C-alpha cells in the first residue's frame, strides 16, 4: 500500500505520482488530504485500487480504464467522463454530468447526484456501463442515453424533494433506467415510456444492487422491498421523422 499526502500538491504533480506508481505495479494507493484536485485517475489504466480521503475535484476517473476508486467523502462534477472500465465508489454526494458518454464500468454513489447524470451513456453487447445513485437526482437524468443502465434509489426518505428532476430520459434512444418507487410521467421526456419490471429485469437489477449494497453495507432486502419501474425509449429513432430527405 502506497500512501500519498495530497495536501497542497498541484493536480498535475499529484496525478503524475499516481500514474508513476500504477505503472510500476502498485496495486493499493491511499490519497490523503485530497482537496479538489482535478483529474484524479483520468486516463488511468491497469488494475489498482485507489482510496481517496477528502473531496476530489472535477473529472475524477475521466477516460479511466480499469482501476477502482473509493471516495470516502463527497465528489464533484464530471466523474467517469467517457470512462471505459473500472469502478468508482462514492460514499457521499456527487455533482453534475456524471458518466457523460460512459462506455463501461460502474459508478456507485451513496448519496444524491446533480443534473444531467448518465448523459449519452453507451453500451454494446456485454459492455454495459452502470450508474447507481442512492439518493435523488436533478433534471435531465439519462439524457440522450444510447445504452447502459441508470439506477436511482431515493433511499433517504427524510428528503422531501422529488426523487428525480424534469426531462428524465429526454432524447433517450438506448439503454435502461430503473427508478425505485417509480416516477410520474410528468417528469419524463417525450421519448420514453414507463414500464413494469419483468422477471428478467428483476434478476438483472438484483445482481447490480447486490454489489451496490455490498459496497455501502446496505441490506439488499430493504432496497428491493420497494417496487421499481423501468424507463426505456419508445423508439430507436426518436427524431427519425423530423427530417425531409
Amino acid at each position: 500500500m502506497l500512501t500519498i499526502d495530497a495536501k497542497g500538491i498541484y493536480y498535475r504533480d499529484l496525478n503524475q505520482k499516481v500514474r508513476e506508481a500504477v505503472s510500476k505495479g502498485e496495486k493499493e494507493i491511499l490519497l490523503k488530504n485530497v482537496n479538489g484536485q482535478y483529474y484524479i485517475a483520468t486516463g488511468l489504466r491497469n488494475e489498482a485500487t485507489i482510496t481517496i480521503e477528502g473531496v476530489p475535484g472535477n473529472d475524477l476517473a475521466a477516460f479511466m480504464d480499469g482501476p477502482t476508486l473509493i471516495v470516502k467523502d463527497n465528489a464533484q462534477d464530471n466523474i467517469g467522463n467517457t470512462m471505459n472500465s473500472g469502478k468508482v465508489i462514492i460514499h457521499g454526494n456527487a455533482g453534475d454530468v456524471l458518466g457523460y458518454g460512459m462506455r463501461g464500468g460502474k459508478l456507485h454513489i451513496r448519496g444524491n447526484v446533480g443534473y444531467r447524470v448518465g448523459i449519452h451513456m453507451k453500451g454494446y453487447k456485454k459492455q454495459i456501463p452502470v450508474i447507481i445513485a442512492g439518493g435523488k437526482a436533478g433534471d435531465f437524468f439519462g439524457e440522450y442515453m444510447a445504452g447502459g443502465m441508470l439506477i436511482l434509489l431515493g433511499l433517504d426518505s427524510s428528503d422531501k424533494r422529488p426523487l428525480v428532476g424534469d426531462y428524465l430520459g429526454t432524447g433517450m434512444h438506448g439503454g435502461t433506467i430503473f427508478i425505485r418507487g417509480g416516477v410520474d410521467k410528468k417528469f419524463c421526456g417525450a421519448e420514453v415510456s414507463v414500464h413494469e419490471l419483468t422477471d428478467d429485469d428483476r434478476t438483472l437489477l438484483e445482481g447490480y444492487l447486490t454489489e451496490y449494497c455490498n459496497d455501502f453495507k446496505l441490506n439488499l432486502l430493504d432496497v428491493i422491498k420497494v417496487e421499481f419501474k423501468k424507463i426505456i425509449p419508445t423508439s430507436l429513432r426518436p427524431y427519425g421523422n423530423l427530417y425531409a430527405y
Partner: protein
Amino acid sequence: MFKSLSLPEFLAKIDPVKCIKCKRCINNCGWSVYSWGGDKVLIDTFKCVNCLRCYHYCPEEAITILDNPVKYRKNANWGYYNIRNLKKQADTGGIPLTGMGSDMPYPVLFDSLLIDACQVTNPSIDPLREPMELRTYLGKKPAKLEFEKAKGGKSKLKTKMPPQIKLEMPFIFAPMSYGSISLNAQKTLAIAAKELGIVMNTGEGGLHEDIYPYRSNIIVQVASGRFGVNPDYLNAGVAVEIKIGQGAKPGIGGHLPGEKIPLDIAKTRMIPVGTDAISPAPQHDIYSIEDLRQLIYAIKEATNYTKPVSVKIAAVHNVAAIASGIVRAGADIVYIDGFRGGTGAAPSVIRDHLGIPIEHALAAVDERLRQEGIRNEASIIAAGGIRSSADAAKAIALGADAVALGTSALITMGCTVCGKCYTGNCSWGITTQRPELTVRLDPEVYAERLINLIHAWSHELKEILGALGVNAIESLRGSRERLRGVGLDSHTLDILGVKPAGR
C-alpha cells in the same frame, strides 16, 4: 393522382440506339433510378441526383443526364430551391436535409483577393531548381528560445518544445467520421496522408481497427457524442481534437441517420444498430471557456501531455474573441471551419444561413491573437471551402498555418458534390455504409489519385512562393502585405487587413 408535386431536378436519358442492355447502369446506380423492364431499362428520373456514376460506367456512352428543362416559371424572387424546399416541407412536414457545403451564391472572398509577385526590384525564385520549403509544424511555439552550452562547446536547445505535428506540406484532411464516410474512404485518406507526410482526422466516429496502423498520420476527434472515445483512441494518433462546432452547422449537433448505422458502425460507436447517432448540440460538460479548459487538460492528462490538443469551432460572428479564449484555455491548435464547409448531413436552413465565411474569420482571429501577443501559443487551421492551391495560399497569407481539405479530397474519389451524403446511397462508395457500394472504393487506387492532387497543389504552392520571392511556406503565413483586394469595400478590406489593388 400525381407522383409528386416536386419537379425532378435532372433528366436521366438512355439513347435506345446505343444501349446494349448490359444493365451496368442498373447495378451502378445507388439511387435505384434504373430498373429492368423485361426488354429495356426503365428510368425513374425523380431519383436522379446527377452523381454521374452511370455515365462513367456505361460502356457505350449511351447515358446523358440533363438539367430538367421543365422549370417553374422564372421569378427573380422565388428561385428553384425556395419552391422545391417548400414543396418538400408540404409533403413531409420535416426539415429538409442537405449534404456538402452551402451552394448559395454568397460572395467568395478568395475570388476577390490577388497575390503579389516579384518584378525587377526583388528577385523571384525558380522553385524547380532552388530549395523550397513547404514543411510546417502545428502546435504551441515557445515565446522565446533559450540555449545552453553542451559538452564540446556546442550550443544546445534548452527550451523544452511543446509537442508538435509535423506536416511535410501545409494540408491536412478535414475530419470526416467513420459513419458519415465509408471505411474505404477513411482508408484512402489514411494511406494518402501517410504517403504524403501529412495527417487525416477521424472525425467523431471512433477509430476502426484497420486505421490504427496509420497512427503517425491521424488526429483523433472527441466531440459531444463521445463516440468511440477510450484511452487507446486518445493515444492512437499524433493529436487529439475537441470538436465544438462545424462550419456547415454552427451551433447544432450531429445527426448520423439510422440508415448509415449498420453493425460495424454501431460497434465502433457503441450504440444500437439502426438508431440515429446523435451528437448533442453542446458538449454538456462545456458551457464556458473554463469548462473547455477542463476538457483540454483532461485530455492532456489522459495522454500524459505528449500530444497537442486542437479545438475545432465553426466561424461565427464573435469568432476572434472565442478563439482568444480557446488559446487561453490551453489549446495548441485552433481549427476554424468557415460557413462554406462541408457536412455529411445538415438542415439546409442552418447550412445556408448561419455562420460567417472563413476569409473574414481567419483574418479576424489571426489579427486578434497577434494583438493580444498570443499568436505563438497556438497554430491555426483554416477550413471551409478550400478549392485550390490558390485558396490555400490566400488562407495562409491571411494567417493560417495549414488548411484542411474535406470536399476537395472526396472529389478525387469520384464525388461530384451532388450533396446527398445524408441518404447513405452514394454510388461512389464514399458517403455510404451499404457494402455493395463501399466495395467500389478501392483505397489503394483512390489514394493514388488523392496523392496526385496534393502533389499538384504542392507544386503550385511552390510556384506561388517562388513568384513571391520567398522560399518557405512559413514566410507567407500572415503576410497580408502580399495580398490585394479587387472590388472589395473598405470595411471588408479593413477586416481582412488587405489593401485594395493599385495601392
